[in-house]
């Protein structure tokens, strides 16, 4: 039975680390603008599909390279494309609404999400695309009966590295200081000589770059890509950001990993714990019950600061 538990923890960590990377994008934008960018999940999709197209292109153009090269090429194309999409989104859809009532940018974000999905449907079609297996998914046995695949290890490793890099960026660099200042109060930051428009645009760009990586990892892990694939990770990552305390970077990471673990453990054990009264179709409800309980006792999330205004 201990194998099953270990396996569930690994499952949870893989899913959770992806949630965490996507949640960072939500939480960064929320921290600075107080905007919930619902189109963020669709950037994940754009990343996965752009990488797919560029991998297929390179495989066609120069066949026979080692798989890792194709994989890196996909990533290197997807990241700037997503950054461009993120920048365009901020510039075209959100900047003009920055001083509008909060609902206006929120509705716009939902609109942008539909727009991205529809464009992707036009470009990549409606079918499911099978994603090339460039990183092996052959199971490695780490203990008896407990398996992990190289692509899963890469997902966890890459997520951790990205999170670390982001923390260093925000806490140790001049850009990070400007971001924190803009988050605190963008008008005063502007008076102090921070080009807030640039900082806000950069926030979107960084968040979208992270989403691109998450998209490639999700697609490589499950072997599928599709124009609506961003919806579920988007919603889950948003939940993770709220769970951890939206606006808080560490919170997004903790929230993502915790949510992934809750889901895996929930799906695995809810039936046993409730004596068959609830089953795995309540997997998501289980995650939201935990979210509800956390928010009752800590309304700003697990690591949210107790501040009156936005974080």
């Amino acid at each position: 039975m201990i194998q099953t538990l270990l396996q569930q923890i690994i499952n949870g960590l893989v899913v959770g680390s992806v949630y965490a990377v996507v949640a960072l994008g939500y939480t960064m934008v929320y921290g600075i603008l107080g905007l919930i960018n619902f189109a963020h999940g669709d950037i994940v999709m754009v990343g996965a599909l752009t990488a797919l197209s560029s991998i297929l292109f390179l495989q066609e153009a120069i066949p026979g390279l080692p798989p890792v090269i194709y994989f890196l090429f996909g990533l290197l194309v997807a990241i700037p494309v997503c950054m461009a999409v993120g920048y365009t989104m901020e510039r075209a859809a959100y900047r003009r609404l920055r001083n509008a009532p909060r609902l206006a940018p929120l509705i716009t974000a939902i609109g942008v999400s539909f727009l991205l999905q529809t464009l992707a449907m036009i470009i990549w079609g409606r079918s499911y695309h099978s994603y090339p297996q460039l990183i092996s998914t052959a199971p490695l046995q780490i203990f008896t009966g407990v398996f992990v695949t190289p692509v899963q290890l890469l997902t966890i490793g890459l997520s951790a590295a990205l999170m670390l890099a982001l923390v260093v960026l925000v806490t140790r660099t001049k850009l990070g200081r400007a971001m924190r200042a803009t988050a605190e109060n963008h008008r005063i930051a502007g008076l102090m000589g921070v080009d807030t428009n640039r900082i806000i645009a950069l926030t979107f760009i960084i968040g979208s770059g992270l989403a691109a990586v998450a998209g490639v990892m999700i697609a490589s892990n499950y072997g599928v890509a599709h124009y609506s694939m961003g919806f579920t990770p988007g919603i889950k990552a948003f939940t993770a950001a709220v769970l951890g305390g939206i606006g808080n970077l560490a919170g997004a990471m903790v929230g993502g990993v915790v949510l992934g673990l809750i889901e895996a453990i929930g799906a695995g054990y809810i039936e046993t714990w409730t004596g068959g009264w609830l089953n795995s179709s309540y997997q998501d409800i289980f995650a939201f019950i935990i979210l509800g309980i956390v928010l009752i006792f800590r309304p700003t999330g697990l690591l949210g600061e107790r501040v009156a205004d936005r974080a």
Partner: protein
Amino acid sequence: MKAKLLVLALLGLGTSVVYAQEIVKIGHAGPLTGNIAHLGKDNENGARMAIEEENAKGVKIGGKAVKFELIGEDDQADPKTGTTVAQRLVDAGVKGVVGHLNSGTTIPASRIYDQAGIPMISPSATNPKLTLQGYQGVFRTIANDVQQGSVIGKFSATQLGKRVAIIDDRTAYGQGLADEVEKGVKAGGGSVIAREYTNNQATDFMAILTKIKATNPDVIVYSGMDAQGGPMLKQIKELGIGAKWITGDGGCTPELIKLAGDAISSRAYCTQAGLPLEQMADKTFKDRYQKRFGTEVQIYAPYSYDAAMAIMTAMQKADSVEPAKYLPVLKKIDFKGVTGTVAFDEKGDIKNGSVTVYEYRNGNWMPIKH
């Protein structure tokens, strides 16, 4: 230039007067966006092909030349949108409907067509409930889940192994089929050792598969669509589960093979209501479809083709496009379709709906005897 345009305009006017045709609208509804948009488009293509072929023949009904026109709607595989588009089709004045694709959308939509007195034929909704509502104008050209589920259950228990785990996607289709599979397993002398659930948006099944692995099954039955089935097979392999795997018609597609990649092997099976494309009455359908649309048949296009044909044939036999006149003929219709003989029983289910079991072999689903 102006004179030329005038001549063209007059010519246009002339032809429209000479060939005054009655336009008869036939509705199609299925998901054209979302997760299973590829299947929805496949269904629409099937109906479109039937209509184009009939139009090419030049049909006369009630002494007038008739042109059939397909009105396609997107129900997004969503029950609520399904009823909205059903109403839209009714308002557009369609004389018959081919659709919907999913049981979950077809059942609520059937009520709207029934109230408007418009006959509907679903090419792919297999939930038994559809034809048990007592509506007069509701038909399907595909065998229902009672037939398919019991075949899956019995085949699993008698040929693949006694310990069976069942996963369904909680849609009306998935749940309905899984319930019948469970009965079939028991009838075949096996036991259901786990029943797990996912949803039709999911790509991660590691948690439920890990749980199933602990129960040590011989067979895993997945009752859902290909978009989930492919990734599920991968994850079964990643977890080192050695059980055989079988799915219903929703997963019996070329798409599933593509999505599962190297994780699919000879221990994967699927069933499909009806006959394999190669064994269908009309062997040229596959090529005709490929030529017209430039893509392969996914699953239900032949059933959708036959559904549209049934409506148009009934109209011609009744010599009327009015539902009240042609519905009695449709109920008694009996013709050779692409999928075989199309005739409905008193509930509206296809008569002699056959179920075929397929095994994965060398990149294809190959029909096997069972």
